[in-house]
């Protein structure tokens, strides 16, 4: 009897997860179709981001050409760092664009009303309702950068892909945490934007440059090491234990973000923006 009941429960849960995943797939599909409606702008934004990242590539090329290795990092390692951060960022913001300052804006302007009125998982609905088009450029740039890094062993490729996904999860979780700050501080858009910028800025430089309190900060308040430095070490050292650590960091980040979002939701005041039709 017990066995049948738990099997039934597991089945219901699985069906529920399947429904939610189909819903998320639908949201991402609509986001993409809507972005591609303006074909020229769509391509320009992707190309613009590609160029943006490309300039940093040129900078690092010139830098290492002139100064050689810095704190254990050489050109290939920086290319790998770029590949992971760009792909993680690309995945996060292409799929779940409503984090960070966008989430803070939605909360501060009372626009959660729209999502609250619909019979869907609130957090998933909000997160996946926006696609940052330029992030697609980041995603493809990440793939290109990986080729430049020259790590083609099958194990390295697998570790790279898994690390990028986990890095993306840390970015989404962090975006949720800083975006949810709007529930508590009102207009937290600027703060969340600065926090997200700091995360990416620190992640794009070799983490070995930072020590002491700054390093502690990069493991905690601005967890940039988890989206850049640690994934690089995982791929270079083919380190499974470190990968498990990164998975734990991703889970903690997403868990904290989800908890903070729902804790903040209790303080949410409607913006009288209920307009479902």
């Amino acid at each position, binding site marked *: 009897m017990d066995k049948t009941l738990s099997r039934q429960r597991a089945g219901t849960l699985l069906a529920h997860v399947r429904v939610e995943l189909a819903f998320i797939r639908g949201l991402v599909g609509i986001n993409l179709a809507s972005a591609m409606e303006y074909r*020229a*702008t769509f391509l*320009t*934004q992707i*190309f*613009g981001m590609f*160029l*943006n990242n*490309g*300039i*940093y590539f*040129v*900078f690092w090329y*010139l*830098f290492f*050409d*002139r*100064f*050689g*290795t*810095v*704190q254990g990092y050489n050109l290939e390692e920086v290319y790998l760092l770029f590949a992971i951060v760009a792909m993680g960022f690309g995945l996060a913001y292409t799929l779940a664009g409503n984090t960070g300052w966008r989430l803070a804006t939605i909360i501060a302007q009372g626009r959660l009303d729209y999502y609250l009125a619909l019979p869907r998982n609130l957090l998933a609905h909000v997160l996946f309702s926006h696609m940052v088009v330029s992030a697609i450029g980041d995603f493809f740039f990440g793939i290109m950068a990986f080729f430049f890094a020259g790590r083609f062993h099958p194990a390295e490729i697998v570790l790279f892909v898994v690390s990028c996904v986990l890095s993306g999860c840390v970015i989404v979780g962090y975006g949720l945490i800083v975006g949810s700050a709007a529930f508590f501080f009102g207009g937290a858009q*600027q*703060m969340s934007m*600065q926090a997200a*910028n*700091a995360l990416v*800025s*620190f992640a794009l*430089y070799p983490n070995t*440059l*930072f020590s002491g309190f*700054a390093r502690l900060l990069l493991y905690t308040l601005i967890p940039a090491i988890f989206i850049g430095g640690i994934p690089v070490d995982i791929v270079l050292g083919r380190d499974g234990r470190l990968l498990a650590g990164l998975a734990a960091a991703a889970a903690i980040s997403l868990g904290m973000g989800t908890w903070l979002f729902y804790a903040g939701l209790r303080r949410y005041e409607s913006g009288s923006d209920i307009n479902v039709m």
Partner: protein
Amino acid sequence: MWIQLRVGVAKYGAIAGINLQNQLAYVWDTISRSTHIVVFMFIFTQLWGAVYRLQDVTEINGLTLANTIWYFLMAEVLQIGQIRHDTQITEEIKSGAIAYTLGKPYNYLGYHFSNGMGETIVKMGLLWLLGSPIALAFAGWPDVRLAHLPAIAVVYLLAIVVNFCIISLIGLMAFLIEDTFSLRLIYQKIVFILGGLLIPLDFLPEGLQRVAGLLPFQLTTYAPARLFVGFEWPMFWRQLQMGAIWLAILLGLLSLQYRWAARRLAINGG
């Protein structure tokens, strides 16, 4: 003519003053938008500190570590604090609001310059205030002589004007292409390398240094930052000469583009 000049100065000064007051009224907002300079400066101090330490040198191509750190502060302040009116021009063209703006009793670009200056003064001042403690902590006081400050200020102003001209050229391109964001992005990225924002031109390979020295991008960032950390009169005169040449070219292009754009403007109704 003097009266006309006085009226002009008063009018555009008033426009700048209004935006200055506006920025000061929301100074906390401006501060929160400027805090990322602290992150940039901290990263630069760590990166370039490591370079000088690992190379075991006190000077690279005439720049000490302290020079390099102050150079980056100056360059970042200039770039982040610059007038960015291209999005405003693009929006006005897209929405058609430009038809009303052009009818007002001021020069369209003159308005944008003075309005932008009101914002840029506050922004650059705050960026200095936020970034200089980091530079001071890691590099000590900058090696600047008071007698050189007026000359540096001239090149600084030149940087703002040259940047304004390039951004205006980009903004007015909205008459041709709807969204000029990607053009500005390309310009900004060129400044990263050829303007000396990410790496001082002194550290580039010689060929690239020579090419960059001939282009206007280095005038917007490298020239004032480099003179600030190591003033030399021959370099000052050379930059002033380059600035005058590029300013003439850019203003000529801007005037042609503005006239062409005004001809393309179609106004219906009132």
